């Protein structure tokens, strides 16, 4: 949409009341798809917050001792237990994929089809690695007898919060990986250069879609930052 008056609108803090009281669109100059993705991410933030807050409340009111995540999530390397090793690697993998996604957005806007497409592919592979390691972690804990209703390490609530929170986050990563592969294919096919109409929406393809996809992916990384801090480190 054409926004010929964007330069004439107030900038900085003064833009907030004038935008909110204006006609037609509130977020001047912001692509509507991007605004909608942000609104969705805001609602998702509330869902994840509710999970983490219920975890906080459950842990604060548990009478039995809470399992020590540093020991529960340790991996044996050469006979020595290294605390949180897998979780640390997962964190670095997710940050790496977030970085490649940020670069993909940049090169998308610069209409560098090849680099953008391959960077999205790299992001998708990072996401797949993450989900794979999470599956490994889940099966390891299940083998050790961790269940949503009991575990051998301490407070019974531990398992239900663990499976719920990391499971919901892993679902987000998996959905993201699917969309990353779809968009990598679209980019490399050149749909965004020709403005080919989309399969579902029949809207013209535009590289802004890569930024919207990027917002989702960075959000998944953002949530992991909080899960890593509160669930694994606290």
């Amino acid at each position, binding site marked *: 949409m054409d926004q010929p008056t964007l330069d004439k609108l107030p900038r900085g803090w003064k833009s907030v009341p004038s935008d909110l009281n204006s006609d037609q669109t509130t977020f001047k100059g912001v692509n509507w798809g991007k605004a909608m993705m942000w609104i969705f991410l*805001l609602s998702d933030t509330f869902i994840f917050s509710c999970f983490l807050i219920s975890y906080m409340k459950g842990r604060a009111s548990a009478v039995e001792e809470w399992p020590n995540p540093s020991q529960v999530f340790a991996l044996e390397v050469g006979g020595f237990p290294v605390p949180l090793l897998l979780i640390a690697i997962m964190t670095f993998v997710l940050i790496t994929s977030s970085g490649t996604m940020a670069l993909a957005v940049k090169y998308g806007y610069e209409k560098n089809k090849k680099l953008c497409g391959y960077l999205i592919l790299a992001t998708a592979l990072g996401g797949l690695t993450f989900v794979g390691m999470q599956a490994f972690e889940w099966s390891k804990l299940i083998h050790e007898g961790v269940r949503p209703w009991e575990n051998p390490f301490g407070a019974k609530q531990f398992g239900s919060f663990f499976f719920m929170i990391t499971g919901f986050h892993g679902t987000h990563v998996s959905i993201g990986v699917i969309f990353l592969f779809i968009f990598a294919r679209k980019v490399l096919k050149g749909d965004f250069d020709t403005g080919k109409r989309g399969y579902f929406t029949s809207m013209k393809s535009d590289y802004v879609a890569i930024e919207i996809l990027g*917002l989702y992916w960075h959000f998944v990384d953002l949530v992991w*930052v*909080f899960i890593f801090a509160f669930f694994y480190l606290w």
Partner: protein
Amino acid sequence: MNQAKKEETPTHKIGIYLWIWGLLFVLSFFSYMVDWFQFQGLLRWTLILIFMFLKAGLIMMFFMHLFWERYTLVNVLLWPMTAIACFVGLMVAEGKYTFFTRLFYFVVGS
């Protein structure tokens, strides 16, 4: 349609992204070190929170472009976080109360 204005999509220098990327790695490494050196108590919680908020801030500001986004959108996104902060405060109090009542009735009996 004003073509010149339509093409005006901001792309940023690659240096910014690489810097933020590097900082995120360093901060993640630091937060892992918090566990590695087994800091405990108040020091541990403060360090975890500092590194967490720094990482979250960097991701949102630069990777998610909030730093360059229109103020109205930024405000609409960030003010609801105060509701979450209130909720956390309420549940801290509730958690302590539940813990106290559990201990009390486990000892005294119902």
